[in-house]
């Protein structure tokens, strides 16, 4: 469904993505993990055509992303920060996206699911952060697109809304959709993800199943596995920086 080949992107002198190759062929939930600044959001935004790659190629459903726009009909995107025109009401915003995008979205069941009914007539500027996030979810997921991209979907949600979101994602997965999620909440990943992509300094450090990741790093939890990856990387970095010292240490050990 989504193919990424040799994707490179720099912002000024900072190289954020250093040749990413990635494929999302099987339906299911893929979590993109990585420390802050590892390039998660840049990767997602490249798929959406918001960030323009320096090199490489991205295809969604066979269509090249570069210069295209119609391919975005196949993607539902939930952005990280939910800010909308403050003077519009929730209802107007839903109508507006429907008007802009066309098609037949089903917002009703999402409004019911997240209890957004009483807020439909309210201006977005007057809503609390959590309610805005709910409106954000309704807007993003009301289309039945084959790909869902969610950037930190859990931020600001209360536990009930969080449960409903998980339930919803499971249902969408059952329908055979490709769901890509970035999050910092490891519990969410352990519970929901089928596959994990771990980004570190612009490279894919690991791609595979949750169990595989834990086994590879000899950890019984995801958190620990990730801590070990980061630790190893740090050690490697130190060894690179002090090559002679490290060699001396190794010799001594021998």
């Amino acid at each position, binding site marked *: 469904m989504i193919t990424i080949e040799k994707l490179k992107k720099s*912002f000024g002198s900072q190289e954020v993505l250093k040749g990413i190759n990635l494929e999302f062929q099987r339906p299911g939930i893929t979590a993109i993990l990585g420390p802050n600044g590892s390039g998660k959001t840049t990767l997602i*935004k490249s798929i*959406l*055509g*918001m*960030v*323009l790659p320096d090199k490489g190629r991205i295809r969604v459903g066979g269509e090249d992303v570069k210069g295209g*726009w*119609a*391919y*975005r*009909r196949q*993607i539902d*995107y939930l*952005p990280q*920060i*939910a*800010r*909308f*025109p403050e*003077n*519009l009401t929730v209802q107007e915003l839903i109508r*507006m*996206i429907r*008007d*802009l*995008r066309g098609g037949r979205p089903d917002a009703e069941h999402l409004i019911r699911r997240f209890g957004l009914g009483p807020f439909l007539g309210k201006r977005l500027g007057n809503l609390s952060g959590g309610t805005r996030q709910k409106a954000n979810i309704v*807007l993003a997921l009301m289309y039945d697109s084959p790909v869902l991209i969610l950037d930190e979907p859990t931020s600001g949600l209360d536990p009930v809304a969080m449960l409903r979101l998980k339930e919803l994602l499971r249902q969408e997965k059952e329908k055979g959709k490709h769901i890509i999620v970035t999050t910092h909440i490891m519990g969410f990943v352990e519970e929901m993800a089928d596959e994990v992509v771990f980004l570190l300094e612009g490279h894919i450090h690991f791609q595979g199943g949750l169990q595989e990741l834990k086994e590879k790093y000899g950890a019984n939890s995801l958190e620990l596995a990730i801590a070990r990856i980061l630790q190893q990387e740090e050690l490697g970095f130190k060894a690179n920086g002090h090559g002679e010292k490290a060699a001396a240490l190794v010799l001594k050990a021998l």
Partner: protein
Amino acid sequence: MFKILKYSFYDLTRSRWMYIYGAFYLLLTASLLWLGGGLSKAIISLMNIILVLVPLIATMFGVMYYYNSREFTELLLAQPIRRIHIFFGQYLGVACSLAISLLLGVGLPFVLYGVFNSPEIWNFSVLLLVGLFLSLIFSAIAFFIALRNENRIKGFGLAILVWLFFAVIYDGLFLLALSQFNDYPLESFAIGASLFNPIDLSRILILLKLDISALMGYTGAVIQNFMGTLLGMACSLGVLLLWVVLPAWGIRWVAVRKDF
């Protein structure tokens, strides 16, 4: 694009500032007409205000609207819509709301005063036309600057600086050049230099229409000779149009290359 324009416009018509802007013109025009004494005097006073205020407000609104709707723009960018349509839609939304505030604020009192039954109707039309052009020009420049600068403060500062340059500094430099090179024939230079400043160009257009170019001495006569004709008028309007097209083209150029 028209859908984005529609919603930007709709969003802005709910904004208090648009009403304040319109109400300000309404009050100003009404008091100039009824308390100031007559149509032609009101037109000249309004000209001086419009030439400074319209560019300033268009600049401020353009920059503010772009920065305030930045996150929402990101939501739109993820939709199956062409990039250029999003930005042109938003720009035209801002420009149209400004133009309508001006049109209603200045237009209503004039209509009530009976401008349609007066020979001043053409002068008044030129004044409004120039106001519309300035709204389009300066909101486009503002959008272009905001698009190029991620940093809000820098964007705001630059936009205000551009306004200050065209509204004040340019004239100062222009006068300085005229007085420095007083010994040379400067008429063509004067015409050429005013084409490069949309505010000056607008001022000259109105002054010529008001037939008071004699106040500008010999240069005024030369300008009258050039711009007073139909060709000159068409030429100046063409240049004003170019002043809209250039920053709009700049918006397009930046929009298709920018990372969000």
